[in-house]
């Protein structure tokens, strides 16, 4: 057990820091923030940034060299994620390509698929979106109804998907479809790689509680997808999808800790400036207890994540990722609620309003956090997974 970096890891970190100091645009945080300016400018900025990271030799730290990756250790991948977050570097635009498509193709793709898709994910030349959920298949993902019928060398896809982030700018989509409706629920599903430029695809933005449209609905009407674009075998899609979901809940969650650390630091700094009844609110023992508890939980995310990473290092990510997802999503809600509590009613004023706290930043965070325990598998589903697949309790 060693919570310090090894010499090699330190070198990796220092080199990355040096590169970031030279290459990260000063106004990156502003340019990357949603709603601040035209959507197209933001996307272009993020694409340029991703390309810069790729050209700098930093993209896909743990991916094999032959497909455009760095070929470094998973631990170095984590250090990379941490350092990028700490430096305030924007999230990679191709978050689904990087966190889900890539690892799934590496695990289940043919050599041809690996060569075709992986490098372009890293360079953000091709942005990916995820077509898993449907209006009637949310928590019960395997109950999906979007269907694909074989027609020669193609599948013809009809149906609807929902909650697909990035669909409006994506070139490609990982899509789950039902290819055998006579088979058992989990057995008739196929995992397709779909070109978003295919005729018959309509994308409709979905406005959420924050007023933003982060997600989309996608409609498929007789969309042709070559059989060559099946990932992992016809009717084998559920097994392949599990890899994607595990990566979503496992690897992606690790970078999250740094963001919460920074968010909490921001709250601590803000709280020190807030007065209540003429005294700094941070002198209030009740507030101190709550902030201390936040500090503890945010800090624990890190060894928690690292300890499941130890299992990850030995192979595929397992259902333990659900513990991390459950923890951080619930934690973030408490953190944002605490921020609103400390800042008081002015925290509820909208961006642009006089007296709004940090121009509505905390309000946005507070509202957005409600989605955390729903997206990428609700807390209820995570608890099912933890109890059944980690603890071995019987299925209902």
């Amino acid at each position: 057990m060693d919570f310090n970096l090894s010499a090699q890891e330190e070198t990796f970190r220092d080199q990355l820091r040096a590169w970031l100091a030279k290459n990260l645009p000063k106004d990156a945080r502003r340019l990357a923030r949603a709603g601040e300016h035209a959507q197209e400018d933001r996307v272009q900025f993020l694409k340029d940034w991703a390309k810069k990271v790729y050209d700098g030799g930093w993209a896909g730290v743990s991916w094999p060299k032959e497909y455009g990756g760095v070929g470094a250790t998973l631990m170095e991948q984590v250090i990379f994620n941490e350092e990028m977050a700490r430096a305030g570097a924007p999230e990679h635009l191709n978050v689904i390509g990087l966190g889900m498509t890539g690892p799934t193709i590496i695990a289940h793709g043919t050599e041809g698929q690996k060569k075709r898709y992986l490098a372009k994910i890293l360079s953000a030349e091709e942005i990916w979106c995820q077509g898993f959920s449907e209006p009637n298949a949310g928590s019960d993902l395997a109950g999906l109804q979007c269907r694909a019928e074989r027609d020669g060398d193609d599948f013809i896809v009809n149906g609807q998907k929902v909650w697909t982030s990035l669909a409006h700018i994506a070139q490609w989509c990982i899509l789950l479809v039902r290819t055998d409706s006579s088979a058992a629920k989990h057995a008739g599903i196929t995992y397709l790689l779909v070109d978003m430029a295919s005729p018959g695809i309509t994308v409709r933005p979905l406005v959420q509680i924050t007023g933003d449209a982060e997600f989309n609905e996608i409609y498929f009407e007789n969309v042709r997808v070559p059989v060559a674009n099946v990932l992992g075998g016809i009717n084998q899609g559920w097994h392949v999808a599990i890899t994607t979901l595990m990566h979503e809940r496992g690897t992606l969650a690790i970078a999250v800790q740094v963001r919460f650390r920074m968010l909490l630091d921001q709250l601590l700094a803000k709280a020190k400036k807030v007065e209540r009844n003429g005294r700094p609110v941070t002198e209030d023992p009740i507030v101190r207890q709550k902030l201390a508890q936040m500090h503890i939980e945010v800090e624990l995310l890190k060894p928690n994540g690292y300890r499941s990473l130890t299992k990850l290092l030995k192979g595929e990510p397992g259902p333990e990722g659900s513990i991390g997802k459950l923890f951080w999503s619930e934690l973030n809600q408490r953190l944002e609620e605490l921020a609103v509590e400390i800042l008081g009613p002015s925290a509820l004023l909208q961006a642009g309003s006089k007296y709004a706290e940090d121009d509505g930043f905390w309000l946005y965070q507070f509202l957005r956090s409600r989605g955390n325990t729903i997206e990428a598998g609700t807390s209820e589903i995570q608890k099912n997974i933890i109890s059944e697949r980690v603890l071995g309790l019987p299925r209902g």
Partner: protein
Amino acid sequence: MDFGFNEEQEMLRNSARSFFERECPTTFVRKMLDDPLGYSPAMWRKIAEMGWTGLLYPEKYGGLGLGMVDLVVVLEEMGRALLPSPFLSTIIEAGSAILLGATEAQRKRLLPQLISGEKTAAFALAEPNGSLSADGIAARAVADRRSGGFVIDGVKALVQGAPGADLLVVAARTRAKGPAEKAVSLFLVDAGTPGVTVTPLPSVDGTRRVGEVRLRSVKVGKDALLGRADAAWPVVMKVLDRANVALCAEQAGLAQICLELTVEYAKTRVQFGKPIGVFQAIKHPCAEMLLELESSKSAVYYAAWALDHDPKAAPLAVAMAKSYAGEAGYRIAARSIQLHGGIGFTWEHDLHLYFKRAKTTELTYGGGTHHREQVARAIGL
């Protein structure tokens, strides 16, 4: 002892429920979100015609002479309907300040105007420091020897219903020395008086508007003083008590519809081949929500009853109600979103409207921690 509503009250509820279902569906509420004023003056007149604006006021001012317990029934329905209206600011706050603190002449002049819906009003109390104690009042009113009136200077923030209000009831310090509780007066200020600026403060809850009120060397006459000089703080406390009970009653109504929507959704939404309501992950939170909802109602009804019949017990009862029902209502709204899953997180679904109003209600005029400390004091800790 009797812990239910009587027949008249049940009828009142039924008529309020059907009125708001007809006049204030959420499609209407959404329209009001984009309205500059934030509510419909036409509907406000209808509400006044229903008599609800006068429920609490003696008949001689044009009211019905009933009490808070009766009003709670209507307020629950208003919360359930997410009613955008100046009811809280005009009827509960400014109106109560006038009823409880003004001279008889002022009452006779002003209350009928508010009750009839002719004029709206706002209670300009809190300032940018957010304090709810008399110490927090920095606005000051200085006697103007020449006119016999006053000159008022100050800034009020997060004033309920300020945008669009005709009349402002402004709290200001009238004595520089001595305990703050004996140095505050209330003034009746026409919103059009020179030196008064009202700026809307767009908030997450678009169904109830708040604003900033700036007063720069605002000159008012002698008769602008509401009741007696320096003696307004006890009136302010009573107004806040009424406002908090009103907020809680609305919160209970809001929480009730959130739970109803959730139960209904759980009965019809099918996942894993079953309505999700069969899963204990849905069932048990619903049971807990009901427990908190019923307890919220108990707290609100008792506080309303105490305001009517046991004034000594009222401040404690109000603090209990606000801390409990304020937080519980928010939790119920938040859990409703969770139990709805993705759809509950969309703009399209109404749940976010309840959620946003519930959080705002929780924090308005003191959150749970503030009111629990009031409870601690009241029980001798």
